[in-house]
């Protein structure tokens, strides 16, 4: 699983910068109803990272299949493709120090162009697309870069308030270099008027936090007559340099 040489950079072993839990959504956000019974009521116990959290799994490029980052084709029958607005999503995985994170596993999933997920528990009447599965994955390159091709997902209704609709979004799961960086988030689309209405977006207190999850349309990277491009950078927790640690070898 772990692949020694993803880059010439020395392995990172320092402790992580603390998370800003006012910037992240709180656990208890009653506008998002399911959070009411699924949020801890007691305070989190704060710890400086131990080796159990500063280490983490690493995934080799050998797990990635040829079409894993092409959702237009990876579930489609031969010669066919998914229906919907064709887009490219690209960006970099960075840490809080601004450095690219090479070798990071990104997994992404989404509804189809009509807002329908391919999942047994999904009951929305919009049709499934027989050529669209909705999952993909990438491992970032030396600079932390990634890209994938997909169709733009549609908004969909959900049983929260009587008339709540999710903005168009793509879910992302990210592994950095330590298990304490583990992150799941959602990407929204520049200009979508559903964003400020959404109770899940509104679990974020700071408007800048929602902006940080909103991908920008990039006409420079758009392929004429083919696919529009959206740029989405993801930032993982940074680490203190081991220079600052008591024990130079890490902990």
């Amino acid at each position: 699983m772990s692949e020694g040489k993803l880059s010439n950079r020395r392995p990172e072993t320092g402790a992580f910068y603390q998370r800003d839990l006012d910037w992240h959504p709180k656990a208890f956000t009653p506008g998002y109803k399911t959070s009411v019974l699924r949020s801890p009521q007691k305070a989190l116990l704060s710890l400086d990272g131990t080796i159990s959290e500063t280490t983490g799994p690493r995934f080799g490029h050998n797990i990635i299949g040829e079409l894993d980052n092409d959702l237009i084709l990876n579930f489609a029958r031969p010669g066919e493709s998914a229906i919907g607005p064709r887009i490219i999503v690209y960006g970099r995985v960075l840490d809080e120090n601004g450095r690219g994170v090479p070798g990071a596993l990104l997994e992404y999933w989404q509804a189809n162009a009509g807002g329908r997920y391919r999942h047994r528990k999904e009951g929305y009447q919009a049709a499934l697309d027989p050529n669209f599965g909705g999952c993909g994955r990438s491992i970032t390159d030396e600079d932390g870069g990634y890209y994938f091709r997909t169709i733009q997902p549609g908004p969909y209704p959900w049983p929260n308030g009587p008339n709540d609709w999710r903005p168009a979004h793509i879910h992302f799961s990210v592994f950095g270099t330590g298990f304490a960086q583990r992150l799941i988030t959602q990407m929204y689309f520049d200009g979508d008027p559903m964003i400020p209405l959404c109770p899940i977006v509104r679990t974020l207190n700071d408007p800048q936090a929602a902006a940080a999850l909103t991908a920008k349309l990039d006409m420079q990277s758009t392929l004429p007559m083919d696919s529009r491009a959206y740029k989405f950078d993801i930032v993982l927790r940074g680490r203190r340099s081991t220079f600052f640690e008591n024990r130079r070898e890490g902990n």
Partner: protein
Amino acid sequence: MFQSLNRLKESPSQTAGPYVHIGLTPNFAEITGVYPDDLGTSMVNDKTKGERITITGRVLDGTGTPLKDALVEIWQADADGLYNSPSEMRGSADANFTGWGRCPSGMDDGVFRFETIKPGRVPYPDGRMQAPHVTLWIVARGINIGLQTRMYFPEEETANAEDPILGRVEHRIRVGTLIAQKVEGGYSFDIHLQGDKETVFFDI
């Protein structure tokens, strides 16, 4: 005036939602033919060193109802207390043990299950030894940011008593929420998100 620290802000978390399986365990979600296997399904092979154990458990909400749409990942050391990670500088971990596993809770019974090995002890930053433990990360619909906790072993009374992290739990009555129960064939570890039996979660 002063210079800027020029740091970026971490991307804010959002819930994994009810369809997390599509992305993280697509074969479990009946989306077949895209990936050969779901990642994290298998942690051990025939050559893995150490005592084989099975960990089963559930994630329960504030009414005691098991979540049927949670996803749990675990991360642990090998039998000698080494992590299979490039950030592990103390030596090379068992190449036949991944250290990492992923399992959705069952859509009908809410049970997750890991076939793994009992981990060795690893040091705390000040050099004291931690008791054997498995680190868990839990996401689901209704959980806005993934929850971190640990599972310790009930038969490790001496090691648990000197564990630096268990020692940090102010309300001693809560220490038990981090200790698994021995059951036939392995260990059972239920995670209570809320209420009197609430599991201790960490800001790490």
